[in-house]
């Protein structure tokens, strides 16, 4: 089980959290300007790196907040967790 550092509650067991997919996927400021290829990219395509990965987690059975975690997908080592809106370390 991972020990995930919630930026609000501190390190907590993984079972309290829900995974929220890749972080920093930004919706277009003006959706009307986005063509089909752009929408396809936004909705369906995600990075699947072997190594550093920024991902969203939600402390579902805790404070209930979404936040971002930088995790190495190969070693499962969590390098940082930071609040939504903060820049990726």
């Amino acid at each position, binding site marked *: *089980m991972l020990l995930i550092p919630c930026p*609000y*509650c*501190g390190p*907590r*067991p993984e*079972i*309290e959290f829900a995974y929220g997919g890749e972080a920093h996927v930004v919706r277009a400021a003006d959706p009307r300007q986005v063509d089909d290829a752009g929408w396809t990219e936004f909705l369906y395509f995600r990075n699947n790196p072997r190594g550093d990965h920024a991902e969203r987690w939600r402390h579902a*059975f*805790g*404070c*209930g*907040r979404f936040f971002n975690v930088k995790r190495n997908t190969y070693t499962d080592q969590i390098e940082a967790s930071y609040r939504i809106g903060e820049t990726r370390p």
Partner: protein
Amino acid sequence: MDNLAIPPAAMRRSSLSGQEGGPTCRPIAGGGRFSLRLPPASRQPAALALGLDLEANINRAAVSGGRAALRLGPDEWLLLLPEAEAPAAALAGALPGGLYALTEISHRQTAIVLEGGAAADRLNAGCPLDLDLAAFPVGMATRTLFFKAEIVLWRQSETCFHLEVWRSFAPYVWELLGVIGREYAS
């Protein structure tokens, strides 16, 4: 027979009504509960109106004369108040036009008290948190899991825990506490 002639017996029943419990584990009936959501700017006037400290750290409980505010998240508090108290009017007066959400959840949850030297061990049978005093000090209160049920866990003293359980989960939690308790029966 005229059914309307029989006065209705309106009374509050806990989902653990009829359970006696023992010295180390017992249900608590009654009590008022409110879920309070506040932006930072509304915190001070709300604290004054309620007479409770809302500036405590996240995952800490502020107690004042039988009333408690458990801070579950950056903008979320669980208020445990005497049953007759209704804080809605006081809050509305203190925050005219202010942003906040107050929801009465008195009947959504029921409480269980777990006491005794083995209380932390018994909880750890189904709760994944580190309940060592260094990691979970007296006064800490947080939402977490007990087996598959969501609970709010509040450490009131070194050996006494207060559990807030949703009413439909309460028989499940109660049953499991009983099963675990058999291992620790003296």
